[in-house]
């Protein structure tokens, strides 16, 4: 029982959704897998936008359109492996090992929640799709610039760039959440590297394609490792070591 909930509203438009959810104690409800698990007692109104969101996954003119209402399982089932070398599906699985939960968890919810240890979230941060966000009107915002305000209704991934993607994740078991994620996408002349996992905040940087060398790898490892702590998965030194190792592999492959 989520005892603090007093009402669930069903807005008929994104406009209404924004208005309802701007009040204190309100939260947007899409799939609900995160919200209902957390049962935040400060939330008393849920604004159910599931019926407003579209679930479509479409390729059109060298762009991949993903509706914010698409579930993580939809992504696995419907996006062919030729798109981004199948990484969207693979990271969707790693983000959430339970098929039951994947069938409930929406892409929009995953991005809005923005977990540092969500593999698909970190991948998308690296690919940087353009989000369609409704604030007072519908606007296009690149993911890395989104400030967390408004309702994500969908996103568009530019496919013609055909980035080279390397994605490495470290977890206790295959089914466990990643405690360290190191990924890079190379788009022709530049490279975006993102590091996430059980850290205070995930980290991303975009550099020229040939940027990775011993010195820069050392520096990136040192800086990003400072966002981790000594915990049951290992010491900071170990995580730095793994980041270093992954970055070397990235340098060697793309």
């Amino acid at each position, binding site marked *: *029982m989520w*005892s603090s909930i007093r009402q669930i509203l069903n807005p008929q438009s994104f406009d209404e959704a924004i208005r309802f959810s701007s009040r204190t104690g309100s939260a947007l409800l899409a799939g609900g897998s995160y919200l209902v698990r957390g049962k935040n007692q400060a939330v008393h109104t849920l604004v159910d936008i599931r019926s407003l969101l579209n679930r479509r996954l479409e390729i059109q003119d060298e762009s991949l359109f993903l509706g914010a209402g698409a579930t993580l399982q939809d992504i696995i089932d419907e996006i062919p492996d030729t798109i981004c070398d199948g990484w969207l599906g693979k990271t969707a699985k790693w983000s959430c*090992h339970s098929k039951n939960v994947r069938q409930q968890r929406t892409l929009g919810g995953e991005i809005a929640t923005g977990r540092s240890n969500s593999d698909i979230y970190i991948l998308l941060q690296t690919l940087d799709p353009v989000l369609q966000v409704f604030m007072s009107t519908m606007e296009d915002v690149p993911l890395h610039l989104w400030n967390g305000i408004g309702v994500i209704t969908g996103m568009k991934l530019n496919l013609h760039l055909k980035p080279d993607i390397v994605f490495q994740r*470290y977890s*206790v*078991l*295959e*089914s*466990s*959440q990643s405690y360290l994620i190191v990924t890079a996408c190379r788009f022709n002349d530049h490279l975006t590297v993102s590091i996430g996992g059980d850290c205070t905040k995930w980290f991303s940087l975009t550099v020229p394609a040939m940027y990775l060398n011993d010195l820069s790898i050392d520096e990136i490892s040192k800086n990003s490792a400072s966002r981790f702590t000594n*915990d*049951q*998965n*290992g*010491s900071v*030194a*170990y995580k730095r*070591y*793994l980041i270093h*190792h992954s970055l070397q592999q990235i340098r060697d492959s793309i």
Partner: protein
Amino acid sequence: MKVVGQHTTRVDGKALARGKAVFADDIRLTDVLHIKLLYSAIPHGRIVSINTDKAEALPGVVMVLTHKDLKPHFFTTAGQGYPEPSPGDTMILNPVVRFVGDKVAVVVAESPDIAKQAVNLISVEYEEYPAIFDPEKAIDNEVIIHPEIKGDRFLFDAKRNIAARITADLGDVVSAESSSTFIFENEYSTPYAQQAHVEPHITLTWLDENDRLIIRTATQVPFHVRRIVSEVLDFPISRIRVIKPRIGGGFGAKQEILNEEICAVVTLKTGRSARIELTREEEFFAARSRHPQRIRLKMGVDKNYKIRFIDMDILENCGAYGPHALTVMSVTSQKSLSLYNIPNIRLRGNAVYTNLPIAGAYRGYGAPQGFFALESMIDEIADELKIDPVEFRRKNIFQPGDEIPIARILGEGREGYKMTLNTSGMEACLERGKLLIGWDERKNNKSGNIRIGYGVAAVCQGSGVPGIDMASAQIKMNEDGSFNLQVGATDLGTGSDTALAQIAAEVLEVPVSKIIVYSSDTDMTPFDTGAYASSTTYISGGAVKKAAELLKTRIIDQAKRIFENDEVKISEGILTASNGEKLTFSDLCTRSFYTDHQQQLMASASHTSFDSPPPFNATFAKVSVDTQTGHVRVLKIVSVTDAGQVINPSMAEGQVEGAIPQSLGMALSEFMIFDDHGQAINQDLLRYHIFNAIDMPEIVTEFVHTDEPTGPFGAKAVAEIPINGPAPAVANAVFNACGVRIRNLPIMPEKIIRWLGKL
């Protein structure tokens, strides 16, 4: 044999497959009260004051109990036979709290949600005491965790924080040491692991129409629950009935009086039905877990590679209270010291209190810890001496006909009994396992970043606790030739109802479908100590066999009377007189009920044993180690078991298959972490990593047949033994793969990288 040893569908299978309402919580109680507990926020201290006014004032709250409301009485929560060989160091609610998670108050309300809200309205003022978190610092620490307990014969020395001590000597270790050519000494340890059964602890209580207290609970020990609740609440046994419905897993965590007494108190005080169910989070800190142990081993080997002596020193962490403290340590030592024929043994063990969550019974019950240490050291010795690990084991294992001297010295909490090994399939298990894993591959050169390694562990367990476990059964006949079999034995998913039905069916020569099993109800079934110590097949099965055999002779005698003929043969449900006259079971019973020499054909029997014939197991592991990241992946586990005559092959395989991921978890991914205030951190299934369907390696399970003369139809136990081997086998495989020896579980990637000098 027609039934025993044959694949038989579980007698309760269909109900489970169809999701029928058979578990404890699957009933609707009228007017039920819900119970939630307030737990201590500090690891050690005294409750100075506790204010429950706001909680009691919340609408829907019926009652709040604190230590002031209950008569102080010390008992043990361990579900063991009387007198329980565990310290009587627990009170239902104690004014002193001893770990983060110790019970402070009981809130009773009309709904679980109201109860939960009320818990947050209780304010407690503590006087905090210093706390002990390191078991190595517990003995003679100036902080005493149970200062108030005096004169408890099962609490070794409260003033020194020693809950239990164990000592055993065989031969002369000192002179054996001087005559050993090679000496090895090392220290090993295992962590806090959780049983993690999917159904939480759940109890419901109510008063029936005769004002008897009915306890419907997920328990492995219904009779111990009845006795201990009676003792704690000073309420007569004759007015208590404990019913065990289907259980969603226990693995030892439900061999405990865990909250039944609280639920009963609420019913007795209010007259209403009551319910308490632990949340998953509470399962992690407020239930029971495996005893973490540190084991120091010193072993000596002569020039013929025979082990001359073993010196074992155990430090066991009980947590804040000591249920099963002594007996777990006894099993750790007795089982691991019963595998190899070592003439000189020195055993010392201390079980100590710390201000951490309580350890209890968990499948294997000390043996997994013991075998992790022993089988790791055996492997280290084999490696040092350049002898094949399997060969080294073969040279030293006990052989059929040998007496196992340590068994006489070490019982479970008391002196043991003489044990002679009647059967041993240990060698055959090792040979078969070698073939199935591809043992010869282990010698291949290790190169590249990903190294493949192979490891082995040889293990044993027991079949019941000799001289302590007792079971009984009664069987009565029905007029259609079917039989009601009533047993105290507890099926916790292990399939014992089915196995016992098979034993009865085999004796009575009827199909299993003719045996209707009813189990684990203290009113309706005769006594059984409960499902632990791998006693159900061996001891409860023994009782069922006796009862069925007795009934069979009575059936024949009755037929003789009816035929008026002294020569009667029985075969497959038909009785035939020497003149050819026939009676079916159905005819016989119908006539016995209604017309001829009237009686209810029935029989009962009890069984106990001073034998506990060990089952044997060889577990082989194939792993891959990424020497750049330290990550270990288990690729394949081969588990070959000698369980004597296997009663039900698919159920026995199921026991092995389920035990394997529990042991792999202990080796690689399952361990509780505490902050420096003693609070458990990973209290959910996202952070406590259990092997999932996608994590499982390839599993190969086989059985080697032996015939145990003392077991029903030659059976030995199978439920616990398969959990002993995988962890040491994996540790040994990791060593074979990359030369890294991990002696302190869990095997963490960082440990491997550091050992390899990469960090």
